[in-house]
């Protein structure tokens, strides 16, 4: 897309772009190419010996059932986070949209988790669900439900999903609310004159019209689940039990920084970058199309 009128200057645009270009070159492209290089190397922990190994790291990666497992874990986790994050916040937004009195109070309380760091969110949830001193696990115990995320991978997954969804709900909520409020009121009225009751109206009019917002949030939530939840996993389960909650970023970090397998970790970085680039392009295409019409 282009502006009709543009300024003419040979050097000015470059001067304007310079800070950004410098920063991304030094802190993005350089490291990224570094990652690419390292993915083809094998190094000892202290970096004193380096050996080119071609695609061996990648081969090893995809031969490793643990990695494939981690893919599945990530997929499951992202789907759960995106699904619950989006649907719960949509539910809240739909009702918040109806509420007139007290709306401000509800809204303010609902957006608070946005301010909480993922790492802190995990701490809060671990604290609630700790098998020995958690208030919630205690309450669950009273109902005869033994909560133990240390051994039960279902529980562990539930815990990180809960914490991640909780953390993300505010953000989604804000967008949905804004999205709902930007749907022209007359459309709702038209639908009600057409005979649609609230439930039907929601599914046939409001929800389809929210689809740009939903799509946007879907991408954001998936990216969030892929990356920003590292802190949650690290603080809540450390990938356990077994490797049942070791999502991809956690594994990158773990293999690179804990296991000191730089080549393997770099190879994983490269794979992740590829995934994200695909996501970016999809998102970009979509946004671009949308702005055009």
């Amino acid at each position, binding site marked *: 897309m282009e502006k009709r009128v543009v300024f003419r200057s040979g050097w000015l645009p470059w001067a304007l772009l310079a800070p950004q270009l410098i920063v991304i070159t030094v802190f993005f492209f350089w490291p990224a190419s570094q990652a690419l290089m390292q993915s083809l190397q094998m190094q000892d922990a202290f970096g004193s010996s380096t050996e080119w190994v071609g695609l061996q790291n990648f081969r090893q990666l995809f031969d490793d059932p643990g990695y494939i497992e981690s893919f599945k874990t990530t997929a499951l986790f992202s789907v759960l986070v995106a699904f619950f994050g989006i649907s719960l916040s949509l539910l809240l937004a739909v009702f918040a949209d109806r509420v007139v009195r007290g709306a401000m109070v509800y809204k303010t309380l609902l957006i608070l988790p946005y301010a909480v760091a993922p790492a802190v969110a995990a701490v809060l949830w671990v604290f609630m669900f700790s098998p020995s001193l958690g208030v919630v696990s205690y309450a669950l115990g009273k109902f005869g439900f033994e909560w133990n995320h240390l051994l039960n991978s279902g529980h562990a997954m539930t815990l990180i999903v809960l914490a991640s969804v909780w953390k993300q709900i505010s953000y989604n909520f804000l967008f949905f609310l804004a999205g709902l409020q930007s749907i*022209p009121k*007359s*459309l709702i*009225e*038209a*639908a*009600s*004159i*057409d*005979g*649609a*009751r609230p439930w*039907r109206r929601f599914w*046939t*009019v409001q929800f*389809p*019209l929210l*689809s740009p917002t939903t799509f946007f949030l879907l991408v954001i939530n998936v990216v969030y689940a892929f990356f920003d939840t590292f802190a949650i996993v690290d603080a809540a389960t450390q990938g356990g039990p077994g490797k049942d909650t070791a999502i991809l970023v956690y594994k990158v970090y773990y293999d690179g920084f804990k296991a000191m397998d730089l080549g393997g970790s770099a190879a994983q970085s490269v794979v992740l970058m590829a995934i994200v680039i695909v996501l970016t392009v999809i998102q970009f295409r979509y946004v671009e199309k949308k702005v055009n*019409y």
Partner: protein
Amino acid sequence: MAALSFRNVIKRYGHGAKANQVIHGVSAEIADREFIVIVGPSGCGKSTLLRMVAGLEEVSAGEIAIGKRVVNQLEPAERDIAMVFQNYALYPHMSVFQNMAYGLKIAKVPVDEIKTRVDKAAKILELGHLLERKPRELSGGQRQRVAMGRAIVRQPQVFLFDEPLSNLDAKLRAQTRLEIQKLHRELGITSLFVTHDQVEAMTLAQRIIVMNAGVMDQFGTPEEVYARPATTFVASFIGSPPMNLLKQAPGVRPGMILGIRPEHLTLDADGWSVQVEYVELLGAERLIYGRVGDEQLVVRADESQPAPVAGDTVKIAARQDKLHWFDAGSGKRAA
């Protein structure tokens, strides 16, 4: 198709101390198959009145009846009405066909019949080739027709239109006006049409309701409203340029207002001396703006009359059979 009655309808927005009454007791009986236009300046309560009929606003007091049913307590869906909105309110994510079919689908009309009815409406409105398009792929006029189509397929008792033409350009507006008239002739559905444009009102209406600040100033045929405006408000609102309303011109008694339309003033006759301020040429005719004493005056003159220029003083006479007299206090028609 049904008659429509307003019985002392009142509308207040807000509650208690903050309540703000915007409709002050409107009563009107609209016959079956009639085409009624509600006209009035912005904020006078036209939309509010219409939306009460639609069920989009609650009636604060009084009754609205469609046919024999008082509908005050019914949901919009239960009133058997259809409405065309100013911005059309087409569902942007549905095709033209889906837009028109939506209401029928909800009413569980069989698929076959939906198709027949939509096709028929599309044919009437010449939308046949556009059925698969999305609203954003249509021009303003086409969108407007889809909005009408959506109303038509429902075969409702009453059509409601809230300024449906105001987003169209002048040419399209004129053309759509004709289409609406044609449609009404064909379908004969009782219609309530809101506009603030008096030309629209005059050309479309069988009867006009002139609203003024929440009050119904006049309810009559276009001819009546034009020829015998019930209040100074109606007199000045209907007709362009508006009727000259004179308080101090020679021959006007105190406490009275004399109304005379610009086209009923003749140049070069034996009458008031008018100072010409400027002249506007409108194709076939001229508007001459002038001043008699302290009062502004407009004369509409055609080519056959002489053409004064700004600064001239001309003599002007009014056709005596076209004088309107109003009470200066109430603004009501005196004779």
